């Protein structure tokens, strides 16, 4: 287990300069995520066109894993259908939790998160944004990782 498996360059880059960061003025779906263990907070904004995620942005404060994961997620789900986003989440979840899970082709840059599974205390940091996305897609206002 090497630290570089967790803090890969892609993760450090997306932590330093998160993509799609800030509020989305024209959002028509939104949810808040909260990790009480570390105090990470995340607001996720979606502009849905029917079942299609036209735009997505986030803001909040968190650790490198949670910030980079949210940044990578927004890049990955923008322009996708609800079903495709949910399928992607299943693949990310397997990557984060299943030993020896291989990255599927649709993950792209999200595959950089595979090192997180060697650090079980940090898996929730990476999944917070995805739980928040599900809440926003399903119309719930707040999720907590507890």
């Amino acid at each position: 287990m090497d630290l570089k498996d967790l803090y890969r360059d892609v993760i450090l880059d997306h932590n330093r300069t998160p993509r799609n960061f800030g509020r989305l003025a024209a959002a028509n779906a939104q949810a808040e995520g909260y990790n009480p263990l570390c105090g990470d907070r995340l607001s996720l904004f979606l502009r849905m066109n029917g079942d299609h995620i036209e735009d997505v942005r986030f803001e909040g404060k968190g650790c490198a894993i949670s910030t980079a994961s949210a940044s990578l997620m927004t890049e990955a789900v923008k322009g996708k259908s609800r079903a495709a986003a949910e399928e992607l989440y299943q693949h990310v979840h397997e990557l984060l939790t299943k030993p020896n899970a291989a990255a599927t082709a649709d993950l792209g840059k999200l595959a950089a998160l595979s090192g997180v599974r060697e650090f079980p205390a940090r898996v929730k940091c990476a999944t917070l944004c995805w739980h928040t996305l599900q809440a926003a897609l399903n119309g719930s206002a707040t999720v907590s990782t507890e």
Partner: protein
Amino acid sequence: MNVAVAEQLSAAPLDAERVRRDFPILSRTVNGKPLVYLDSAASSQQPLPVIRAVERYVTHSHANVHRGVHTLSQEATDAFEGARDRVRRFVNAASVREIIFVRGTTEAINLVAQAYGRPRFGRDDEILITALEHHANIVPWQLLCEQTGCTLKVAPIDRRGELLIGEFAALLSPRTRLVAIAHVSNALGTVLPVKRIIAAAHEHGARVLVDGAQAVPHSRVDVRALDADFYAFSGHKMYAPTGIGVLYAREELLGSMPPWQGGGDMIRSVTFEKSTYNELPWKFEAGTPNIAGAIGLGAAIDYVESLGLEAIGAHEQRLLEHATAELTAIRGVQLIGTAAHKAAVVSFTMSGVHPHDIGTILDHEGIAIRTGHHCAMPVMDFFAVPATARASFACYNTPEDVKRLIDAVQRVREVFG
């Protein structure tokens, strides 16, 4: 060991390398590296004399206390009540009737809120706390306010993490019924001037509860010299097992308080019409207590007295000063809590790095620190940080531990740039 001998020993500086050998857990490795344990403010490790005292009791004398005439029950009772007297001498209480065994500091504070505050306080009454309290010294009072209509007042702190004594004094009034303060802040390490605070509160007729969880491992506490009304602390932050703690309370206050929990051991007689309660301190100890824990606490007190609390405090102070100076020199490190008088805790943040990432990298180097809000969210809000990284020191830490900490924090800087 008598006090005179302990004082003599305390004149000699602590031999931390020898002390370390008393703590078996310190010889293990974490992530392939020798463990450096810097999280004693959350829970300290246990030395062999404590482990052996608990083992001896469990393997030789265990039975329920205050119950049977059989030999084991007698031995268990003697050991349990012996531990109570050990605690009494440790904090210099006048009587064992003033020493209540509880699960920990949190339970002690809840006991005072419910058995002292709830029957007495009403709409016109105020409870005064400080802005640096642990949640355990905030939430029980909020519950009490909901139950009785009394009001919670909070005395502010400054940017160094020191209590603003003038503002605190200005909040004292005839409405103040109880002042509840930390002796030492768990998140910042600030040592509060509790003796002065107690004197000021008493001038206004208020009673004072001191949360001593972070104080008893580092300095001698004399409840009568402080003139404290209530003093609460936990065993597991002073080298004893978890699940055992102490509430010291003046006998006349305990005598005027109704029982908190009902059950076995706290009664003298029970009928369906009416029960009468046991004497102090057992009136406040319903149910079978943590006998092994109390015995472990007694052994932990013997242990710290054998090292000398003054020697422990001086040793930790040197480590704290060393760590503070070295951390401050690292680019982007910001100390949270820079009070003039601190004990054993250094809390910090790093620019561009979340404390959880610091914690993960340090753990990878075999170093255990606490990261998060330290059950003191209002303190985090005051300093406008979501969390901090906190290294805390105990008798078994060494300058080498501080060096490993500093090297690892520099490694964090390398990873995050």
